């Protein structure tokens, strides 16, 4: 059992473990809505658009997390605003905003010649999470989970029956904006763990795997959480023992578990 406990003599491993678990829970629970409401693309886009915020914050010596949140929230509002006029469809609006912002991030980083730090932003670095980062991740996680629990009934209804929601006086658009804000928060937390490029995997893959295994919403959130946290912890160990990128290991673990869920479902269907 030594090999299980040994790594946690180091404080950076303890911080990393806590960060991984918090990010896992947050992304998995929110991810269930992302999957059910078909928002996978926008989750990916929000992660990418955080890049210029990260780069600017890094170059100015501000908190990276703050920079990413500002960029993420601006994008969430921008996409909502662009597509509200119906002049262009939402997925097109997302495509335009996210590639533009991502390119801006690369441009800023290349101008400052800091490509090595750029790679940490792109691929994440769980072992480099500072206690200050951890506090911010915990704050984001708390905010997202509280909001999801408080507005569960409204989010559920607008997700599966927006028409009825409107009839009883809820505004599906307002809730959608709210959800985009939460998504921006979750994504920024996820970037610390798996980086800009792979964060959407934490949102989509565990929730999608869970949706293959159960057709009850609370259970789906629980299963997604188990998959995400399990994968995050696995990724942390892999990174410690085999010196591989933690983000990639986490995402691959999620993918493997998704494959397993697919298999379980296929077997259930046979019988």
């Amino acid at each position: 059992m030594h090999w299980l406990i040994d790594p946690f003599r180091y404080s950076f491993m303890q911080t990393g473990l806590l960060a991984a678990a918090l990010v896992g829970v947050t992304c998995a629970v929110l991810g269930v809505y992302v999957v059910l409401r078909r928002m996978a693309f926008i989750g990916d886009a929000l992660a990418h658009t955080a890049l210029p915020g990260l780069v600017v914050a890094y170059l100015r010596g501000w908190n990276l997390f703050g920079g990413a949140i500002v960029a993420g929230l601006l994008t969430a509002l921008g996409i909502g605003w662009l597509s509200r006029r119906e002049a262009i469809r939402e997925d097109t609006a997302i495509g335009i905003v996210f590639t533009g912002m991502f390119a801006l991030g690369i441009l800023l980083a290349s101008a400052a010649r800091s490509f090595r730090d750029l790679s940490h932003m792109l691929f994440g670095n769980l072992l480099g999470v500072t206690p200050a980062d951890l506090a911010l991740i915990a704050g984001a996680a708390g905010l997202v989970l509280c909001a999801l629990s408080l507005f569960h009934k409204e989010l559920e209804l607008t997700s599966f029956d927006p028409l009825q929601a409107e009839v009883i006086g809820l505004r599906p658009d307002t809730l959608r904006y709210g959800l985009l804000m939460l998504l921006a928060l979750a994504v920024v937390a996820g970037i610390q763990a798996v980086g800009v490029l792979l964060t959407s995997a934490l949102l989509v893959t565990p929730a999608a795997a869970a949706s293959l295994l159960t057709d009850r919403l609370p259970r789906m959130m629980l299963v997604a959480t188990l998959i995400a946290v399990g994968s995050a912890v696995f990724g942390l160990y892999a990174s410690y023992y085999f010196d591989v990128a933690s983000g990639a290991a986490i995402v691959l673990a999620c993918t493997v578990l998704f494959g397993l869920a697919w298999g379980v479902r296929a077997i259930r269907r046979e019988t």
Partner: protein
Amino acid sequence: MRLPVGVRVALVGPNGAGKSTLLKAIAGLLPVRSGEICIYGRPVGACHHRVAYLPQRGDVDWRFPIIVRDLVLTGRYVHLGWLRRPGRRDLEITAEVLDRLGLSPLAERQIGQLSGGQQQRALLARALAQDSDLLLLDEPLNAVDADTRAVLAEVLDDLRDRKKTVVVATHDLGRLESDFDGALYLSEGRETPPPPGAFVGDESWKVFGRYSQI
């Protein structure tokens, strides 16, 4: 035109006559371009809790992971407002409505596992669970099984006993006499005189009574 409280009125007309449009406008889903709609003397949107609307083809994502009981329970949400969760009374009403519509044995099923007629009945159950004073039903008889038709007829009788106002859009002219107190004929967005020999019901409701103005 005005509707008194507690009548069951059929809106009859061919496709495109404006039945659905009228119901949607009353439900607050469409802006009113000219004229004015008042429900219990207040503008549309001021009393959501008193109006239930059953659309012809809803927006429901039937693959969503929710069971029939919880779908019907969402009919209670309009009375809860933000942050409050359904209480015991809401669960009781839900159970009672499920029972009345013969859905109790299906209550634990995920909504996608119901047949088309059962899904329609589940949505009707939700509209009833809302316990509103004005019910707007858009083509509830369209493409449903005989069971559901029978249940709907019972429900309409029951609603009259409870002094609820019901407006049903339909192009099914058969059996109107037994299910409704009156009929209103629409064509191309306007009221038209009933075709000769057609059911009009007791016309007194057009004049008398306490009004739930439309």
